[in-house]
C-alpha cells in the first residue's frame, strides 16, 4: 500500500469503532472493547509504518508525504482537504499512536472488565462495587464493572479519531474539525458520570471555556483565509512570499501586522484548548471524568493539540522576525503567557491534596513551558517537550488511576466510604502494595521533575531552559523557578503516596492492579526514559554526540530554514541540575514523616492565608463567576429580556394597541352609535330581510360550501375569461 493511501486510512478505524459500537455491539462489553482496542491497534500499526517510512526519507520537510482531494468549491477553485506528514506530524503521530493505544488497553482494566455487575450501580454514576460470596459462604465487597462500559469505548474511539484527523490534516480547516470533535468528546467524557452534579458542571465549564478560545481561533482562520485564499499549511508556511505579504500588511489594529493579528487570534484558541492562563479554569475540573479520559485529555490528545497547532503555525507567529529585531508581537505574547502560566500553575499544584489535581496543574504548568519555548523561538524544544511530556504525563495519569483503583480496593475492604480514594493524605506506603505502579510512577515523576541525564523530561526541559537563557533571560528565571516547584511538588506527591507507612487502613489494604493496567504503565515508562536520548545536544559534555541529536535534525527540517543548533552553556545546565535535584530532595525531606492528622508542612512554611490562596487556586473560579457569569446573566435576563424586549418593545406595541382601543371606543360611542347608526338602521333593516331569505342555503355542511365555492369560482373564472377575451 502506498503511504498516501495509508494516510487516508489512519484515522478511520477509531471512528468506525465508534459507529459499530453505538449501532450494533453496545450490549456486549467484550465485543465493544475488542472492536475499540482492535481499531486502536490498526491505527497504531498504520502509524508505525508511516513513521518509519517517514524517518527514512531524507529532507522530509521539503518532500513530505502529502495527498489531497477537493472538498467544497469556492468560486473558481476548490477547497482542497488532505493529509500531510512532515517531520513535525511524524513525531506527533508517534506519541499519539502509542499513548492512545496504551489508554485503550488500560481502560479495559480500569472499568473493571470481568467483574460482576454492581449491586446498586446505575448508568451515569461510577460503579460502587458488588457483593460476592466465596466458596465458604463469606461475603466480600469487590469492584463492579462500569455500567456504561461500551459507551465509554465508543466515545474514546471518536476522541482518538479527532486527534488523528487533527494531526494528519494538511490545512487549518480540517484541523479545526478535529479540534472541535475533540472538544465535543471531552464534553461527553468529562460528563461521563453525568449522575454527579459536579461532573455535569465540569463538562459544561470545559466546553464553554474552550469554546471562547475557539471563537477567536475561528476568526483567525477567517482572517487568514481572506488574506491568502488558502488554509493549506504548505502553501502558507512554505511560501516566503505569502509570509512576507502577511508580515508586511498592516492589520486593523495599529502597529500589528496581519501575521501578528492572525497569530494572536490563533494562539487564543490554544489558550483555551491547552488551558493556559487565564482560560485554565476548566482543566482541573475535567478530573471529574474517568482517569483514562484524563490521560487522553491531558497527555495524548486534547491539550497537546493546542500546542501542536501553535507549533504548526510557528512560521506565521514568527513572520517578520528579522535578525536583531527581537520577538514578534505574537511570540512576545506567547512567551509572557507561557512563562507566567508555567509558574502560576506550579504554585497551585504545591497546595493540592487530590492526586489527580496535582497532575492537572502540573499539566497546565508544563504546557506553559512549551508555549514559552515557542514564544522565544525554541521551535524544536517545544516540539521535543510536547512529545516527552505526552509520554510521562500519560504514564502519571494512568499511574494515578491505578493508585485510585488500589485505594478503592481498600475502601471496599474496610467499607468506610467516607475515605476519598483520591486524597493523598490518606495514602502512603503504597510502594510495597503496588510495586509496578510505584516504580513506573517514580519514573514518570522523575521525568516530570527533570531528573538529570536519565529521564526524557530532563533533556527536553534542558533544551527549553538553554533556549530561554540564550534569548530571554527573564523567561529563563521564571521557568527555572517553576522547575524547582515542579520537582518539589512531584516528590511531595510521590512521598505522600508511596513512601513511608500507610496513613489509613484503606491504604494498608490496597492491591496492585491487573496486567491490562500495569502493562501500559511499563511501556510508557520505557518511553519516558528513552525518548529523551534522541535529543541530547551535540555540545553536551562527555555524552554529547554519542547518540546523534536526531530530534533537532529531524524536527528542525519542518521549517523553511533549519534552525541553528544552540551552543552549549553551563548556566542552564547547572541551574537545571540544581533545581531538579534540590526540589526533589526538599520534597522528600519535608514530607517523608508526615502523618495524616498533621498539618501540611507547606501550610506552616507559607502561612495560613497564602496557603489558602494557593489551595483555592487564587480564587479564579469565584472571580470569573463575579465578573463574567453573573453580569452576563444580568445582561441577558434583566436588561435584554425583561427590560428591552418585554418592557420597551412590547410596551410600545401594547401602548399602540391601547391607543387604538381608545380611539376605536371614541369613534364607536361618540360618532358611530349616535350619528351613523341612526341613518344606518334603515340599511341594516333591509340587509336583515335579504339575509333571512338567503339563510336557507346555510346548511352548516362543509361539503356543500365547498361545492358552492367551486361553482362560484367557475362562474367568476368564466367572467374574467370573458373580460380578457373582450380586450
Amino acid at each position, binding site marked *: 500500500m502506498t503511504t498516501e493511501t495509508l494516510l487516508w486510512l489512519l484515522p478511520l478505524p477509531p471512528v468506525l469503532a465508534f459507529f459499530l459500537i453505538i449501532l450494533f455491539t453496545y450490549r456486549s462489553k467484550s465485543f465493544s472493547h475488542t472492536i475499540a482496542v482492535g481499531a486502536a491497534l490498526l491505527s497504531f500499526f498504520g502509524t508505525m509504518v508511516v513513521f518509519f517510512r517517514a524517518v527514512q526519507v531524507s529532507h522530509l520537510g521539503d518532500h513530505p508525504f502529502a495527498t489531497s482531494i477537493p472538498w467544497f468549491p469556492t468560486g473558481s477553485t476548490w477547497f482542497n482537504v488532505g493529509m500531510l506528514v512532515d517531520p513535525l506530524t511524524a513525531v506527533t503521530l508517534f506519541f499519539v499512536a502509542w499513548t492512545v493505544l496504551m489508554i485503550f488497553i488500560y481502560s479495559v482494566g480500569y472499568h473493571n472488565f470481568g467483574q460482576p455487575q454492581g449491586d446498586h450501580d446505575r448508568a451515569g454514576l461510577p460503579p460502587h462495587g458488588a457483593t460476592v460470596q466465596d466458596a465458604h459462604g463469606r461475603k466480600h465487597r469487590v469492584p463492579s464493572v462500569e455500567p456504561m462500559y461500551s459507551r465509554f469505548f465508543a466515545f474514546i474511539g471518536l476522541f482518538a479519531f479527532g486527534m488523528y484527523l487533527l494531526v494528519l490534516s494538511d490545512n487549518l*480547516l480540517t484541523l479545526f474539525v478535529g479540534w472541535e470533535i475533540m472538544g465535543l468528546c471531552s464534553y461527553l467524557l468529562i460528563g461521563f458520570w453525568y449522575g454527579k452534579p459536579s461532573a455535569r458542571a465540569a463538562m*459544561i465549564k470545559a466546553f464553554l471555556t474552550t469554546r471562547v478560545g475557539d471563537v477567536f481561533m475561528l*476568526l483567525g482562520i477567517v482572517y487568514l483565509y481572506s488574506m491568502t485564499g488558502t488554509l493549506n499549511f504548505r502553501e502558507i508556511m512554505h511560501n516566503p512570499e505569502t509570509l512576507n505579504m502577511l508580515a508586511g500588511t498592516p492589520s486593523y489594529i495599529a502597529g500589528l501586522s496581519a501575521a501578528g493579528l492572525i497569530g494572536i487570534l490563533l494562539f487564543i484558541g490554544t489558550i483555551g484548548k491547552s488551558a493556559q492562563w487565564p482560560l485554565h479554569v476548566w482543566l482541573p475540573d475535567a478530573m471529574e471524568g474517568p482517569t483514562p479520559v484524563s490521560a487522553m485529555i491531558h497527555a495524548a490528545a486534547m491539550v497537546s493539540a493546542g500546542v501542536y497547532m501553535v507549533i504548526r503555525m510557528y512560521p506565521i507567529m514568527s513572520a517578520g522576525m528579522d535578525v536583531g529585531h527581537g520577538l514578534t508581537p505574537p511570540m512576545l505574547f506567547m512567551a509572557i503567557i507561557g512563562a507566567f502560566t508555567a509558574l502560576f500553575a506550579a504554585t497551585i499544584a504545591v497546595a493540592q491534596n487530590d492526586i489527580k489535581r496535582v497532575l492537572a496543574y502540573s499539566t497546565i504548568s508544563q504546557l506553559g513551558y512549551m508555549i514559552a519555548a515557542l514564544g522565544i523561538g525554541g521551535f524544536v524544544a517545544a516540539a521535543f517537550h510536547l512529545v516527552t511530556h505526552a509520554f510521562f504525563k500519560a504514564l502519571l495519569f494512568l499511574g494515578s488511576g491505578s493508585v485510585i483503583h488500589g485505594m478503592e480496593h481498600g475502601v471496599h475492604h474496610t467499607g468506610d466510604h467516607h475515605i476519598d480514594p483520591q486524597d493523598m493524605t490518606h495514602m502512603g506506603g503504597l510502594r510495597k502494595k503496588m510495586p509496578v505502579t510505584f516504580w513506573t510512577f517514580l519514573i514518570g515523576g522523575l521525568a516530570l521533575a527533570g531528573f538529570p541525564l536519565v529521564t526524557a523530561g530532563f533533556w527536553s526541559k534542558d533544551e527549553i531552559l538553554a533556549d530561554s537563557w540564550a534569548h530571554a533571560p527573564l523567561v529563563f528565571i521564571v521557568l527555572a523557578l517553576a522547575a524547582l516547584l515542579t520537582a518539589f511538588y512531584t516528590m511531595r506527591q510521590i512521598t505522600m503516596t508511596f513512601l513511608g507507612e500507610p496513613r489509613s487502613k484503606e491504604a494498608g489494604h490496597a492491591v496492585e492492579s491487573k496486567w491490562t493496567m500495569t502493562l501500559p504503565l511499563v511501556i510508557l515508562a520505557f518511553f519516558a526514559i528513552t525518548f529523551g536520548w534522541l535529543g541530547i545536544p551535540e555540545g553536551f559534555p562527555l555524552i554529547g554526540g554519542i547518540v546523534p541529536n536526531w530530534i533537532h535534525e529531524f524536527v528542525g527540517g519542518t521549517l523553511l530554514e533549519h534552525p541553528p543548533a544552540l551552543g552549549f552553556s553551563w548556566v542552564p545546565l547547572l541551574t537545571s541540575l540544581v533545581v531538579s535535584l534540590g526540589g526533589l530532595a526538599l520534597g522528600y525531606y519535608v514530607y517523608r514523616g508526615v502523618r495524616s492528622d498533621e498539618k501540611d508542612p507547606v501550610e506552616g512554611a507559607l502561612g495560613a492565608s497564602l496557603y489558602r490562596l494557593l489551595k483555592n487556586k487564587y480564587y479564579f473560579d469565584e472571580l470569573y463567576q463575579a465578573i463574567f457569569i453573573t453580569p452576563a446573566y444580568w445582561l441577558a435576563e434583566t436588561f435584554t*429580556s425583561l427590560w428591552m424586549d418585554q418592557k420597551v418593545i412590547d410596551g410600545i*406595541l401594547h401602548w399602540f394597541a391601547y391607543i387604538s382601543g381608545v380611539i376605536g371606543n371614541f369613534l364607536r360611542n361618540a360618532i358611530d352609535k349616535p350619528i351613523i347608526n341612526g341613518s344606518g338602521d334603515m340599511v341594516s333593516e333591509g340587509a336583515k330581510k335579504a339575509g333571512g331569505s338567503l339563510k336557507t342555503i346555510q346548511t352548516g355542511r362543509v361539503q356543500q360550501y365547498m361545492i358552492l365555492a367551486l361553482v362560484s369560482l367557475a362562474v367568476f373564472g368564466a367572467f374574467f375569461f370573458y373580460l380578457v377575451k373582450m380586450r
Partner: protein
Amino acid sequence: MQFPILSFIVFTPIVSGLLIFLIPADRKTEARVAALAAGLLALLLSIWAYFSYDVAAGGYQFVEQYTWLPMLGISYHVGLDGMNAPLVLLTGIVMFTGVLISWGVDDRPREFFGFLFILATGVFGVFVALDLFMLFFFYEIAVFPMYLLISIWGWKVTREYAAMKLTLYLFIGSVVALVGALAMYFVSGLGTFDMIALEQAGFSPEFQRLVFPFVFFGFAVLGGIFPFHNWSPDGHVAAPTAVSMFHAGVLMKLGAFAALRVGIMLLPEGAKAHMWWIILLTLVNVVYGAFIASVQSDFKYVIGFSSVSHMGLVAMGFATLNKAGMLGAGIQMFSHGVMTALFFAVVGMVYDQAHTREIPNLGGFRKAMPLVAVAFIVGGLVSMGMPGFSGFVAEFPIFMGLWGTYPWIAIAAAISIVVTASYIIRIIGNVFFGKLPDAFEGHIRDVNALDKVALVFLSAVLIIVGVYPSIMVPMVESGVTYILRLLGGA
C-alpha cells in the same frame, strides 16, 4: 413544452388541501393518510426539481409564464434559480416531516392539514415567484392560515394574543412593502410587475435610496429583524408543533428571501446606501437573540429566540453584499430551516410526554427517548456551527464575508457563538441528561415510528450538507453570482 414542475410543486399542496376538506370530518385516519401522501408527493417533486437544476447553466430554469391580467402587467411567472432551489427543497422537507409528526393531532385533523397545505402553497409560491404581484399574492396566502392554525390549534394560554400579534406585524409589514412595490411599479413606467423586467428598470439612485427601507423592512419583519422580532418567539411558542416547524423553519425564510428578492435585487443602489446601519441591526439580532435565549426557562422560548439570533445571521450575510456573506446566508436559510424544524419537533415530542416545557422541571429524557436526544444534539451541533454539520458550511462564509467588510462586527457577532453553545449545552444537560424527575418516572414513553422517521430524516439532511457541502454550495453560489451582477460587482 417541458413538464411544468414548479406549478405542480406550488399547487400540489393547495389542491390536496382542498381535497382533504372533502373527506368527511369523522374519517380522521383517511385525512391523515391523504395528507401524508400529499406531503410525500410535494417532497419528491421538490427533490426532483432541486436535483434537476443545472448548476453549470445557472440562471432561472423551469420558467413558466402565462399572462393573467395583462392590462395591469400581471402574469403568472415562476422560475427556479440557485437561491430559491434550496428553499423549495426546504419547504418540501418541512412539509413532509411536519405531517409525519402531526399524526397525533386529534382535534379536527382534516381542517388542520387543509390549512397547513394552503400555507405551504403560499410559501412555495413566494419562493418561485418572478412576478411582484404574484409574490405578494402568495405571501398573503401564506400568512393568513397561520392565524387560524395558531388560534385554533395553538397553546391555550397565549394563542389568541400570539396569533393576533403575528398577524398584525406581518400584515403591517406587507402593507409597508406593498407601498414600496407600487412605487416601483409606477415609477418604472414599464407597466409590468415582472421582476426580471424591473431589475433592468434603471431606477435613479435617489429613488432607490428612498424606497429601499420600505421594501426591505416590510419583508424583513417576517425575517424577524430587530426591533420587529417580537412576534416571532410568541408565535413559535403558541403554535402547535408542525406549525412552529413551518413558522420558524420556512416562514421566516420567506421574509428574508423576499427582502433579498425585492429589496436588494430590485433596488441595489438603495441596498448599498443603507446597508451599514442594517448590519448593525442584524448584529443586535444575533447577539441579543442569543442572550435572551440563554435565560429563557421555557424550552420553546429558547428555540424561538435562537431563531431570532440565527435569522440575524442570515440578514447579516445578505447585508455584507459580498459573495462569501451572501453565499453563507443562502445556505444558512436552508440549514437553519431544517435545524429549527428539528428543534421544534423535539420540543413538541418532549412536551407531549411531560406536559410542561419548563426546563428546570425536566431532566433525564435521554433514557426514555434516546433518539430524540440524539436528534436534538445533532441540531445543537448545527446551531453551534460545528464543522461537519451544515451550520458550519453556512456560518463560516458569513464570517468570511463579514470579516472582509466589517471586521469589528465579525468579532462582536462571534460572541453569539459562545452564547449559543451555552444555551444549547444547558438544554442538553438539563432536559436530556441529569435525573428524571420522580413525577415522570414510568410516565414517559418513547416517540412513535413516524416521529423517528422525521427526526432521522431531518438529522440526515443536516449531516449530509455538512459533510458533503458540494451538494449545495455551487448551486447557491450560482444564485449569488447573479445577484452580484445586479449589484454591479464582480
